[in-house]
């Protein structure tokens, strides 16, 4: 086992005036581990994700990331330029609304190829081959490579966003409600796809979701958040099958069984 966490978070706190969005959140994420963050709307999940990836300023805390060369950097103290560089090479960020994570004015193929070119790939044939490979992995008909994402369904757009984020082989992927706006049948396909990719690529990921079934399928470990605080953490099946905190028990018992 690796002896150093990929991401180490301590005392992360985010205040909006009087309102506390995240309070003293701390955890370690190990290489190859998928962490689910669950809780109801307004529990601070999405804010936490934005703070971790340096997209929102924090009030206090420390987020340490172990780089490919083994050096540890505090994400919150990096310059904007250095953080963007790190995000391009090492992170993927999958948003709930694929339209926010895609470039709608360029083709599907360009959406997948661009991140590679941003990392220095210049050989058109190789970039296009990688785009084709990834469109295939996310089950998008290769005949659609030159079409604009505007012409895709919501489920296809979400799969395209995933391809765009994974093509650079990031070491850490942040996902915010990745199956959120999709029909149930489309969700199942996407979940299955994500599950396979995460396992095959050995990805480390932090997945925010309010859907406990999604959390069970995708994550090894859970953080349960309520009003900005982590109220319970543990192995995913342990938290869901033997919840300890009153709030977790309420969440688990409130799910409708089809």
């Amino acid at each position, binding site marked *: *086992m690796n002896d150093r966490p990929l991401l180490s978070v301590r005392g992360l706190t985010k205040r909006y005036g009087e309102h506390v969005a995240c309070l003293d959140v701390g955890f370690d994420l*190990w290489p190859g*581990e998928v962490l689910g963050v669950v809780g109801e709307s307004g529990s601070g999940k999405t804010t936490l994700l934005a703070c971790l990836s340096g997209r929102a300023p924090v009030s206090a805390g420390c987020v340490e990331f172990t780089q490919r060369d083994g050096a540890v950097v505090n994400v919150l103290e990096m310059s904007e330029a250095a953080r963007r560089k790190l995000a391009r090479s090492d992170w993927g960020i999958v948003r709930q609304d694929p339209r926010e994570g895609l470039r709608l004015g360029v083709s599907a193929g360009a959406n997948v190829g661009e991140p590679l070119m941003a990392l220095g790939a210049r050989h058109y044939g190789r970039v296009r081959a990688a785009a084709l490979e990834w469109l295939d992995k996310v089950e998008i008909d290769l005949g659609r490579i030159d079409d604009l994402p505007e012409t895709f369904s919501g489920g296809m757009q979400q799969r395209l966003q995933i391809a765009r984020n994974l093509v650079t082989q990031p070491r850490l992927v942040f996902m915010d409600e990745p199956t959120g706006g999709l029909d149930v049948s489309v969700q*199942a*396909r996407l*979940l*299955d796809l994500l*599950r396979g990719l995460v*396992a095959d690529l050995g990805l480390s990921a932090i997945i925010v979701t309010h859907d406990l079934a999604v959390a069970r*399928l995708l994550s*090894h*470990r859970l953080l349960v958040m309520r009003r900005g605080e982590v109220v319970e953490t*543990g*192995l995913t*099946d*342990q938290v869901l*099958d*033997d919840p*300890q*905190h*009153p709030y977790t*028990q*309420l969440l688990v*018992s409130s799910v409708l069984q089809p």
Partner: protein
Amino acid sequence: MTSLIAVRGLTKTFTLHIQGGVQLPVLRGVELSVDAGECVVLGDPSGAGKSTLLRTIYGNYRAESGEVLIRHAGGVVDVARAEPRTILDVRRRTVGYVSQFLRVVPRVPTLDVVIEPLRSLGVPVAEALARARALLGRLRVPERLWGLPPVTFSGGEQQRVNVARGLIAGHPVLLLDEPTASLDADSRAAVVALIAEARDRGTAIVGAFHDASVRAALATRLVRLHGEAA
């Protein structure tokens, strides 16, 4: 510790916060050691905590106090206190678990469900598939079902898929929670034969079996969680 499993002073109480904090004491000071080649059958009646004990050994339920020691990777892990990633490694390499119900993932075909434990150990797909086909064949799961997701299968078919998945990796420790509950006589015999082979290979097994003939065929030792009270 020479045993593969050693449970010491295990206590487990469920506290139902949303039911006004009702306390359900289920396990009280449970002691259990299981050696290689033993099949220990939990002989208590329903509701005595057999499933709770099996789930706690697997790390699915949290122990309230006591130790759940598993011999793993040349050392000993206390599942009651281990980090999540250590428990996952124990499950990957050492402890297999077969419950009464298969938790199915939509769209994943039966063969892929069955080979997953081998794939997570890095066994090549072709070899894993060959072993899965042999197992499913012995368990009398019709070949026409192998490429389909088990969602729509009958209870008995799902259960045999579950058994195949639980046994395929040949883990040194097996936890079995009524693995034959909804099977007809022929399928039950096939499952019992596979479990007996695992036992005779030196697997340490703890099981809850409702069926008397299954107990008779598999048990090397019968224990009760609640000696006097039962």
